[in-house]
């Protein structure tokens, strides 16, 4: 085969990597490059260096080492039976691109994944080699996210954690049965075991109070995973339950949801339709409710119809409309966990309410100044100069708050 030039390779291997939604560069240990011989810093907050017209951010150089793959996962553009062009980077090529992009301030670092070639161990070894070269030869202190090959030897995972900020193994399909059908060579059990191993390694890397020598570093930005939405027929409640179980079991920092999107040369067993972007958005909102608002997956599911979240209104509003007996609540006296359940009040708004009300008794206009729109909040709260009266229980409350359903955009298909 003729040698592909580097730009062509970059094009193929970036295209092959883009269906992984993760782009975070946040939450790792703080570093700068003073006293070093290379470049790179991380300061807690992630930075998105560009946005593509799909609304997704470009924070990391997200590429595959190779898109050759011995697996045949129906939903994946790189599956063995797909006819996409194939390419493979040399280790030094990825290292060179990362540094060249980083020095021009295009990226925060590297997100490297790969098709499975030869074996899980071999593939993982190659990924680790890139990270190791960046860290040890070039003293690169930017962000590195490595994909975990679940079948790989635990020793390689440990080594990956030494160089990477974040590790991730993708569950992809919420239902294990669907994984068996659509990705027969993958084994959900093996993926979960790998995530369990990462959790144990991360816990072991936390220095104890009496440790005199710090244990070796292990992926300070933790691990994440991705679930594809709309490929396997599982309803939202099942997806949320799966997320809750993953957060609880493996200490994941994030579960990413990726609306299943048509791919070039796609398999006949999958739906060819527009990606369910609104559904993806609602799932992210539900995920936030679970992580920051004290909701459990079954609670959010209470307002679902046939297991599906309402697409027209956000899941918190849907829950509140369903549980009106709990409202209105008094913004001047209600505790934090109760305020967090008021539609339209975010974590920041609630924290501001709590701090201001020590000095002022809040009126409705004060609340309006602290949140993004008071219309959604009003029916659910009492303030110094405001009580919703019968509004909370009004039969047409949903219609009054929820915007008229917009005319549906013409289908692309």
């Amino acid at each position, binding site marked *: 085969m003729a040698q592909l030039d580097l730009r062509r390779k970059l094009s193929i291997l970036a295209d092959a990597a883009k269906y992984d939604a993760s782009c975070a560069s946040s939450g790792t240990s703080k570093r700068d490059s003073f006293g070093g011989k290379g470049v790179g810093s991380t300061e807690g907050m992630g930075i998105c260096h*560009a946005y593509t017209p799909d609304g997704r951010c470009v924070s990391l*150089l997200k590429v595959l080492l190779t898109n050759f793959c011995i697996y045949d996962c129906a939903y994946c553009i790189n599956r063995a039976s797909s006819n996409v062009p194939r390419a493979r980077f040399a280790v030094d090529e990825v290292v060179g691109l990362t540094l060249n992009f980083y020095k021009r*301030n295009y990226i925060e670092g590297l997100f490297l994944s790969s098709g499975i070639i030869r074996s899980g161990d071999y593939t993982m070894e190659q990924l680790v080699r890139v990270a190791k070269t960046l860290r040890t030869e070039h003293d690169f202190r930017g962000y590195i996210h490595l994909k975990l090959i679940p079948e790989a030897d635990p020793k390689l995972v440990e080594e990956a954690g030494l160089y990477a900020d974040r590790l991730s193994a993708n569950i992809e399909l919420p239902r294990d049965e669907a994984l068996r059908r659509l990705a027969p060579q993958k084994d959900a059990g093996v993926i979960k075991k790998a995530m369990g191993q990462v959790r144990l390694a991360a816990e072991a890397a936390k220095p104890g109070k009496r440790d005199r020598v710090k244990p070796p570093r292990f992926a300070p930005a933790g691990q994440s995973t991705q679930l594809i939405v709309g490929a396997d027929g599982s309803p939202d409640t099942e997806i949320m339950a799966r997320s809750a179980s993953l957060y609880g079991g493996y200490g994941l920092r994030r579960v990413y949801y990726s609306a299943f999107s048509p791919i070039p040369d796609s398999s006949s067993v999958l739906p060819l339709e527009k990606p369910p972007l609104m559904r993806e958005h609602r799932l992210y909102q539900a995920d936030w409710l679970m992580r920051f608002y004290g909701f459990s997956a079954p609670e959010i599911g209470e307002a679902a119809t046939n297991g599906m979240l309402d697409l027209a209104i956000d899941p918190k509003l849907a829950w509140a409309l369903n549980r009106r007996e709990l409202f209105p609540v008094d913004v001047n006296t209600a505790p934090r966990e109760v305020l967090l359940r008021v539609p339209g009040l975010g974590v920041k708004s609630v924290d501001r309410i709590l701090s201001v009300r020590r000095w002022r008794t809040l009126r409705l206009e004060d609340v309006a100044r602290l949140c993004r729109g008071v219309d959604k909040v009003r029916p659910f709260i009492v303030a110094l100069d405001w009580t919703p009266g019968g509004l909370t229980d009004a039969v047409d409350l949903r219609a009054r708050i929820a915007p008229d359903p917009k005319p549906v955009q013409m289908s692309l298909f």
Partner: protein
Amino acid sequence: MRVAVLDGETDFDGWRTAARALRMAGVPPGQAAFRIGSGGDGLFDESLPLPAADQASFSVPKSFIDLARDVILHRSEDRLDLLYRLLCRLGDEPELMKVVTDADVAEAFERAKNVSRASHKMKAFVRFRQAADDNGERWVAWFEPAHRVLEKTAPFFVRRFPTMRWSVLTPDGCAAWDGETLSFEPPATRDMAPAEDEVEDFWKTYYASTFNPARLKTKAMQSEMPKRYWKNLPEAALIPELVAQAAVRTEAMVATPAPEPNARLAKTLSRINRDRAFEEGFKPSNLTELDQAVQACRRCPLWRDATQGVCGEGPRSARLMIVGEQPGDQEDLAGRPFVGPAGQVLDAALAEAGIEREDVFVTNAVKHFKHEPQGKRRLHKTPTAGEVSACRWWLDAERRLVKPKVIVTLGGTAALGLLGRKVAVTKERGQAVELGDGAKALLTVHPSYLLRIPDEAGKTAERERFVKDLKRAKALL
């Protein structure tokens, strides 16, 4: 009107000194004005009497100073008046900064937020181009920040690129790093920066390839990457074309017929599927087979949220078998029974009873971890009678393979799993029960029960009883 003249748009120290003097002179907010002059040392339109030495000075909360440092970088004309108004009001309302619902405070926070966002966007959107001079490689960027955030943001680039010589040129001024010191220079123009960089083509290739045309969301893109920045972003030139082609590319993907499945691959896949399937009624002939079979088990739904099935561990020739309830959080991750907190209690008790754990076959009545997720933890849940009886299949298989002489059950679930009936452990504890196949069962409590006893005396007493039960089991061997 009293007018104070500042050194520059972002002369915070000048503003601070002048504002302090004005407030001490009792000048009300409407009567004070700030102008930007060229140098000078805070000249006042009308000479302002310096505060007398004995006049009480005043202090303001640190949060106001921090806020003001950001607000002054805002491009609005009236930002200095807003800050002075706040400074004066702080005299009567010392807690004012905490009242974020106040119109002035809210406005100041809003402007600080805009400034902080402009600084963040500068960190994101500066694009260096490579150049060279007599001393070697240099990196130069032309950037137009939304607010006057150059000085605030330049240290970020120092922390990130201390080994590079770089400068960021802006219409407000320039920041330059020579490898040792950061200096600020007068404003520049776009033509002072290099016009191109060959790596930009790679970057554009990457940008175009990482875009998914099937999920066009231009509004989301623009809210995060406002058009005002586009002219200095090399990749932004591609946006119109990418957007224009998106629909066509997506239609082409959808319209292309799916390829014929590869027959050889399909055969391999169906073999894999067959080999991993759960086979009802499969009788394993050794412990390794049993472990594999448990991983495929679908006799009850507990496999779904567990990491793996956890089988028993120990020599096949063991004469003593210990049966617990189910694997816990740690056991579920490690794939081995009794490695968590309860396992440590058991190990210590075994040692005290003079039993080597290596000689014992340790297992559980239920092979998967039943739990309920709560935030970042998993809370143990007791398996139902149905789940216990579904799993008896595997416990029986282990008994058939190991053929222990004595089986100690820990807690009610383990007793239920072994005997197949509900048992009050406290009543039947410590008595040997004939199992029919020549083996004897001995019932006792679960070690996690010992962990939950609050008072030390009770704990010690219960622990002694537990060790005694284990000694009794040893005597039966």
